[in-house]
């Protein structure tokens, strides 16, 4: 397999808890690889650390420990002009572009500004580049003269994507890009993302709580729980034939828009809630909610290890079931 374009090894992010000497571990040792032209889906519920991971990958925040490499170059601690260079190559798209668009500035000006900051075009040509970018995301050139409040949620997300594309990035990190949108608008954005990836050869990290959307767009999927990756592999085995009981619980909890399927399903909801990351359980972080938990799960944190070909999970019980000794 080719070398990954973006690679994270053992990333840890701790935040101090105000007024105490303790810290909260939002990301607890995550390793992921992203290959050229590939989409890595990251799925998990609130508090699993997926958004923190996104911010670490684009270097909006510094990891407490671990390394991030871009094309083999260590970018974990770079800053200044080298960091600006990295920002050109990795861009982030947020859930709510409204919050990240200047309300007093036209869409065209917002995009021009990005081009100018990165000195990508001469000022005279940046206007035609704006038109080009708007067309790439399916907006008419007249949108350049509008303000954010004049746009619908879907149109604003298209602007968010156009702005990210302005610097011709190799990698887009998309944090819940369709979660705030209506169903009929989501599909347009998902199709747009798929088309742009194919046309521009970009790689995506697609982060969502929605397993259906992650399944739809990803080549590989990593499932996160309480700061760790608990299962990872190609999209189909992970989403449709999961090994980890948490992934299975997630898959069963997602209602399928098909009453025939739903009528024949007996979903047993998993008990309890995601534990407080400031006070994680001993052993496997999922054990207090896990229907399969055994004594070992309370004491020993399972490693993420390959259980099937190219399919890893961190679960003592799943490891035994597929005949692998867990470590």
């Amino acid at each position, binding site marked *: 397999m080719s070398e990954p374009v973006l690679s994270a090894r053992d990333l840890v992010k701790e935040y101090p808890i105000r007024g105490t000497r303790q810290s909260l571990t939002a990301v607890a040792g995550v390793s992921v690889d992203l290959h050229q032209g590939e989409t890595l889906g990251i799925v998990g519920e609130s508090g699993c650390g997926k958004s923190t991971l996104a911010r670490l990958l684009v270097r909006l925040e510094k990891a407490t420990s671990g390394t991030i490499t871009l094309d083999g170059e260590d970018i974990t601690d770079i800053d200044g002009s080298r960091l600006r260079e990295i920002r050109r190559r990795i861009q982030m798209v947020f859930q709510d572009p409204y919050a990240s668009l200047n309300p007093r500035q036209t869409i065209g000006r917002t995009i021009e500004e990005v081009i100018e900051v990165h000195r990508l075009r001469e000022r005279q040509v940046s206007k035609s580049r704006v038109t080009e970018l708007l067309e790439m995301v399916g907006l008419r050139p007249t949108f350049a003269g509008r303000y954010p409040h004049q746009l619908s949620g879907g149109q604003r997300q298209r602007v968010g994507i156009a702005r990210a594309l302005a610097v011709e990035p190799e990698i887009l990190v998309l944090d819940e890009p369709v979660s705030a949108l209506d169903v009929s*608008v989501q599909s347009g954005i998902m199709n747009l993302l798929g088309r742009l990836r194919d046309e521009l050869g970009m790689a995506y990290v697609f982060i969502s709580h929605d397993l*259906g959307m992650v399944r739809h767009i990803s080549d590989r999927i990593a499932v996160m729980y309480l700061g760790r990756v608990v299962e990872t592999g190609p999209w189909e085995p992970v989403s449709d034939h999961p090994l980890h009981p948490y992934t299975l619980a997630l898959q069963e909890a997602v209602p399928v828009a098909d009453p025939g399927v739903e009528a024949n399903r007996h979903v047993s909801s*998993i008990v309890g809630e995601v534990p407080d990351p400031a006070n994680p359980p001993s052993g496997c972080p999922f054990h207090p909610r896990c229907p399969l938990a055994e004594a070992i799960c309370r004491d020993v944190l399972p490693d993420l290890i390959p259980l099937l070909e190219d399919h890893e999970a961190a679960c003592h019980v799943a490891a035994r079931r597929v005949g692998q000794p867990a470590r």
Partner: protein
Amino acid sequence: MTAPVLAVQDLTTVLHLASGAATVVNGVSFDILPGETVALVGESGCGKSMTMLSVMGLHPSPPAEIVSGHVELEGVDLLGMTEEKRRLKRGADLAMVYQDPMTSLNPLMRIGDQISEVLVAHGRSHKEARHRTMEVLGQVGIPQPARAANSYPHEFSGGMRQRVVIAIALALRPKVLIADEPTTALDVTIQQQIIDLVREIQADTGMAVVWITHDLGVVARVAGRMLVMYGGHIVETGLTADVFGRPEHPYTSGLLKAVPPVRGKERPPLLQIPGTPPDPEHQPPGCPFNPRCPEAIERCRQEMPPETARHGPTDDGQLQTAACWVPPSEWVA
């Protein structure tokens, strides 16, 4: 045929805005039978929440005004009664749960007091209220009800807060629970717990539920019957399995094809519905869906189609209805 517990006839609500009057609920009629779960489906701004707020008499007035219609709860007209009488019906027979539990709980008041308050307002003694509070907290699966009753909302997680809101709604044993996107703000594993909880309560009490949602997966999971709204109108109704299996309205059909399939190796591009849902102030003439509809003909741009029976009645008397001028046999998309 069973008499409906809730019957809504030709309900129309307008919003009086600076720019003029916008009809946000437009001639809406439906029946809810005892014990059933009906999903009210649609995207943001389609009028689903305003419909149910109008039914409850909780529409913000002004600017909202109910200009016509009847709402009957077990045969008693709710719109005709005084606000005082309606207030007693509300909560007792007809209760509502909202999307964000934090906005429906008082942050400065203990959970137990918030539940008892409802009971006392409806004439229960303080002793009865306290007893029922503990009972209902246990019923919604809150551990250690006595301790929980003494806690404040911020001490609970989102899922537990939604259980508290459901406890308040259930306190008076309503006949109909209106659940407005009760799980949208929650994680899927917690959503599933809430779905199970509502189901258990229904099995125990025979309460009917109107589940307002935009999530077609939730519809398929919870509802026996569904009502699809668009632009203030109900555009399709029927048994959930029938509507999913053979949608009779292009909007329903489009919504179903916009959701990624969750099974199989094929991942085709999703169907896109061009444009966005209409803003209530700028409803197009004719059918509200016509500017986005791949099937629209000239008539759709001029005249709102009436709701007509398409299939049925089934053995239990259910019809599939739709409001569209163009039958599926003539659809091009």
